[in-house]
């Protein structure tokens, strides 16, 4: 008997062992890279039949989503981490310290053979939390060899330097001189047809200059206590960065290219409009396949008056979540993917430079080997990626600093767009930011949240609501049949009452949360009315007022226009004309299409040079156009002689959003059509007999009869417009210069970008009060103009 039990036990154990352990691996990889990754996974599973790796790519807001997953206790076992942001996880205890594994310092992991700056970047409080996988310097200069030859400038050998002025005496050893020489203008024009330089995105340009000059905007990285924005070196660097774009026109403006025309700096470079492009090594693969001219890469110059060599970069590594149930298996996957086999496969796919130095410099892995004909693939100079990887500098900043860091980064836009001088922008920042920093530090040290008091308030709120509902009926006597009817009514209401619990509960919770500083992971801290006070105090944060102003502006334009447009359309679509059903469907179609795809298309329709809007306004020659409307508008907006840059200009971006919104008028049209069809024909017949013309019939019958529908559209329209989110989220990301930083966009950014759930809740309640006020106002005004048929008094 015992033997049988033992055998059965053994059998069970064997089955359990044979069952592979599943490791969930979260990454921000997408597209083609995913294919290479899946191949690596396949190889790994072949070598480790007892482990199954499930890849979970996260598309948007990688870190925040991951953190939210951790809060929801559904975190993956292994996740890709970024050296400048993994502190978000370690500081919350989300990651497993890797020194738990005895072979961390062994030859297999080979920490010593990896680029030391990336290895150290993944240390927190002296312990290793992630194994670096790849490293990528973002500050390579891709250059067009043909344009260098045409300008008679030798190809860069990497010994050049930069300064904030042109030094013609140094010729090609001066980067700025090279840039200025490569900028070509037609006679008498200020805007060049060929730019000397472009940078892939605005922050990259500014941060490259700041880092390479070793200019600091705050004192310590681990706990910033002081901002150094009035440092003359900061002012000078900011101004130089902006002058390259606006004063000297050496570089194309970011708003013109990326926001204005849906193109990218990469495309401009490949078209030969730009001689040099600053971007990362991940560009190499695309360049190989798409660039027609011959090209190569060169290192970014060092600063002439300094000794620093640091450059901005990206990189990632693999970390294990502390919640994993299978640390051993997870560790196997980390070692494999960050080891020679995983690295080689990914590097061969073309986009990631291995963190193991020996692999990085071996031809045929990251560097291309000579092909069959013996010729090396472009770029010839790819070997510099080794020395450049050593120059990459990562910063670990505490995440409570991210709000201030965002403000600093947002200020780049104002400077680079040329709207303000560097001095003004920095002076403004220096005025506001130190107070914010002090506040942030104070928030970190706030007392814990009083749970029981909070719970008591929550219960009291729910009881008060119940009391309010039943107060008027307390003394009423009810008959037996009434009681019966009441009982059966409540049976019908059960689903909704359950749902109400799901609404009221979170509302109460959000109300209580609005008095806290909470990331919903760590113990919340008590802020009292601090969140509301901060939001409402323009000296701490003026975003609320800007954001409210822009939201109101949007609502004031879009709601009346949208309603008028939908009403007019519904009047047309209510005629008895051939093909009306098809027309109705066609007008409704744009509001059915995928919102993401439509936003991308709209980005192109508002294109500064190619878009249809500007084509109508300015004509094909860019000057005349329909009724000369374009030049008139340009003068009005303050950019005479330039086509409007719809999405890139703070003055036109909201009208552009409103125009986009009109394409969604199909939904409103349906509501109005319903209203129109509800009007009895007898009214019209009577009016026609009385001799009323079509305008009078519209004015005196249609309009009054349809007021309830207008009213409904108005209420829902205002509520919707005050919560506008999608277009800004997909198209402009709150920019330019906070012009589309609508309330919900800002709130979302605070909640999921900075994980300040308490503050975001306070913002949500402020928005709720605003919406409530508007709705009550409209309800009060409605008595004056809304007509309900059959309603007495």
């Amino acid at each position, binding site marked *: 008997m015992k033997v049988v039990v033992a055998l059965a036990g053994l059998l069970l154990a064997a089955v359990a062992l044979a069952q592979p352990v599943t490791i969930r691996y*979260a990454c921000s990889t997408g*597209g083609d890279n995913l294919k290479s990754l899946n191949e690596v996974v396949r190889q790994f599973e072949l070598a480790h039949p007892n482990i199954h790796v499930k890849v979970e*790519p996260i*598309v*948007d807001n990688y870190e925040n989503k991951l953190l939210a997953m951790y*809060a929801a*206790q*559904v975190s993956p076992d292994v996740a890709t981490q970024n050296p400048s942001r993994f502190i978000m996880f370690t500081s919350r205890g989300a990651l497993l310290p890797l020194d738990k594994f005895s072979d961390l310092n062994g030859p297999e992991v080979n920490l010593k053979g990896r680029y030391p700056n990336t290895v150290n970047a993944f240390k927190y409080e002296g312990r290793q939390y992630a194994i670096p996988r790849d490293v990528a310097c973002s500050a390579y200069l891709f250059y067009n060899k043909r344009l260098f030859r045409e300008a008679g400038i030798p190809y860069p050998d990497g010994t050049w330097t930069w300064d904030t002025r042109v030094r013609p005496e140094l010729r090609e050893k001066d980067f700025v001189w090279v840039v200025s020489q490569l900028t070509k203008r037609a006679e008498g024009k200020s805007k060049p047809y060929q730019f000397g330089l472009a940078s892939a995105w605005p922050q990259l340009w500014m941060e490259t200059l700041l880092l390479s000059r070793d200019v600091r905007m705050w004192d310590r990285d681990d706990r910033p206590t002081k901002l150094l924005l009035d440092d003359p070196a900061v002012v000078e660097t900011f101004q130089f960065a902006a002058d390259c774009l606006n004063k000297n026109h050496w570089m194309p403006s970011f708003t013109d290219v990326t926001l204005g025309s849906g193109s990218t700096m*990469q495309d401009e470079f490949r078209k030969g409009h730009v001689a040099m492009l600053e971007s990362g090594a991940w560009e190499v693969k*695309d360049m190989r396949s798409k660039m027609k001219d011959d090209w190569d890469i060169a290192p970014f110059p060092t600063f002439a008056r300094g000794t620093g060599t640091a450059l901005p970069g990206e990189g990632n590594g693999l970390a294990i979540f502390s919640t994993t149930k299978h640390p051993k298996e997870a560790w196997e996957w980390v070692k494999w993917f960050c080891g020679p086999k995983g690295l080689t496969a990914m590097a061969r796919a073309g986009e990631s430079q291995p963190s193991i130095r020996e692999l990085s410099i071996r031809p045929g892995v990251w560097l291309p080997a000579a092909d069959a004909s013996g010729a090396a693939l472009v770029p010839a100079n790819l070997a510099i990626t080794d020395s450049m990887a050593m120059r990459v500098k990562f910063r670990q900043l505490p995440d409570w600093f991210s709000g201030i860091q965002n403000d600093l980064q947002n200020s780049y836009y104002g400077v680079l767009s040329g709207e303000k001088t560097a001095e003004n922008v920095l002076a403004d920042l220096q005025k506001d930011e130190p107070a914010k920093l002090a506040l942030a530090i104070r928030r970190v040290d706030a007392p814990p949240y009083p749970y029981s008091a909070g719970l008591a308030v929550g219960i009291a709120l729910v009881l008060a609501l119940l009391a309010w*509902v*039943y107060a008027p*009926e307390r003394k009423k006597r*009810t008959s037996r049949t009434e009681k019966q*009817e009441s009982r059966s*009514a409540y049976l019908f*209401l059960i*689903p*909704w009452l*359950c749902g*109400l619990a*799901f609404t009221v*509960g*979170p*509302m109460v*919770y959000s109300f209580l949360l609005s008095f806290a500083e909470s990331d919903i992971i760590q113990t919340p801290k008590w802020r009292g009315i601090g969140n509301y006070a901060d939001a409402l105090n323009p000296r701490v944060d003026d975003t609320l007022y800007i954001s409210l102003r822009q939201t109101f502006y949007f609502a004031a334009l879009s709601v009346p226009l949208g309603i008028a447009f939908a009403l007019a*359309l519904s009047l*047309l679509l209510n005629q*008895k*004309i051939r093909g009306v059903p098809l*027309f109705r*469907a*066609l007008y*409704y*179609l744009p509001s*059915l*299409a*995928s919102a*993401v*795809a*439509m936003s*991308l*298309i*709209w980005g192109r329709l508002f*294109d500064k040079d190619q878009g249809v809007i500007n084509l109508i306004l300015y004509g094909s020659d860019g000057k005349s156009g329909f009724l000369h409307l374009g030049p008139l508008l340009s003068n009005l907006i303050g950019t005479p002689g330039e086509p409007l840059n719809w999405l890139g200009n703070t003055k036109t971006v909201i009208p552009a959003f409103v125009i986009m919104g009109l394409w969604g008028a199909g939904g409103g049209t349906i509501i109005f*059509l*319903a*209203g129109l*069809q509800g009007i009895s024909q007898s009214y019209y017949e009577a009016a026609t007999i009385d001799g009323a013309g079509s305008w009078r019939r519209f004015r005196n019958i249609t309009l009054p009869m349809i007021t309830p529908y207008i009213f409904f559209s108005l209420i829902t329209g205002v*509520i919707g417009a005050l*919560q506008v989110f999608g277009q800004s989220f997909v198209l402009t990301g709150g920019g330019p210069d906070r012009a589309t930083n609508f309330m919900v966009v800002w709130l979302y950014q605070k909640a999921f970008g900075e994980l300040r*759930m308490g503050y*975001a*809740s306070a913002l949500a309640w402020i*928005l*709720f009060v605003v919406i*409530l006020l508007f709705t009550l106002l409209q309800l009060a005004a409605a008595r004056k103009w809304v007509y*309900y*048929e*059959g309603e007495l008094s």
Partner: protein
Amino acid sequence: MSLEVANRDRIDATARRVRKIQSMAIWFVLFFGAVVFMLPLYVMTAMSLKSEVEIANTSMWAWPQHATMANYVTVLTDPNLNFVRKLAKTLFLAVVPTCASVLTGAMVAYPFARLKFRGRDRLFLILLSTMMLPGVVTLIPGYVLYAKLGWINTYKPFIIPAFFGGGAFGIFLLRQFMMGIPREIDEAAKLDGASNAAIFWRLLLPNCGPVLATLAVFGFVGGFKDFMGPLMMLNDPDLMNLEVGLRSLQQAHKTEFHLMMAGSMIVLLPIFIIFFSCQRYFIRGITLTGGK
């Protein structure tokens, strides 16, 4: 006498001609409006038929020189995107919650439209005010709640709340529509001894066709196109719907326009068909007035 008849005929003829010209004019206005409205979709279609290289090198207005269905094939067969499976999941996420919310919505609307009960007026006010509540207020705590219930990364946050009446907007429309149905019907049934449940199920519900169709289409379209919901509540790529799947074609450093547009076109097709075939009921289903 004959003169009078001739006169009337002439007037009628003129009136007819005027009407004809009028409707021609309206037709042309509608036609040109529709052309303008179709512009984004034209660009979408054109891009979906171009290769990646052609998109980069030609104007977006140009009709593809070498129109190709390759993008559609890629989208439908790419194992990473897994279109067909995602389509099935998307349909599930659109159909099941829609059915649940339309049915329970009608159930909840019935007492508000027809029965007297304690606290009715104030409960109805609460119902209306939840319509005014910005979704963002409950976004964060909603996530926390679902996390605590262990619903994250499952379909529960989409399915279970749909059984709670499916939102104030639908309940409101249903109530308005039910109020427009003559009361005599259910009063007669009541005299015959029918229960409220029987009245609701046998008499009211069958008469609510248009509004049920309207809400079903709204619900289906909303569920089919939902982006934020799956983005927040789901992590597992095998559970994601199409809209999020398409977004994954738009990456940090480049957007695969050709594939994205082809995918969007495929997604648009079923929604368009449903709308086109249901629109007759649709407009009749929306009543905001009457029956006070």
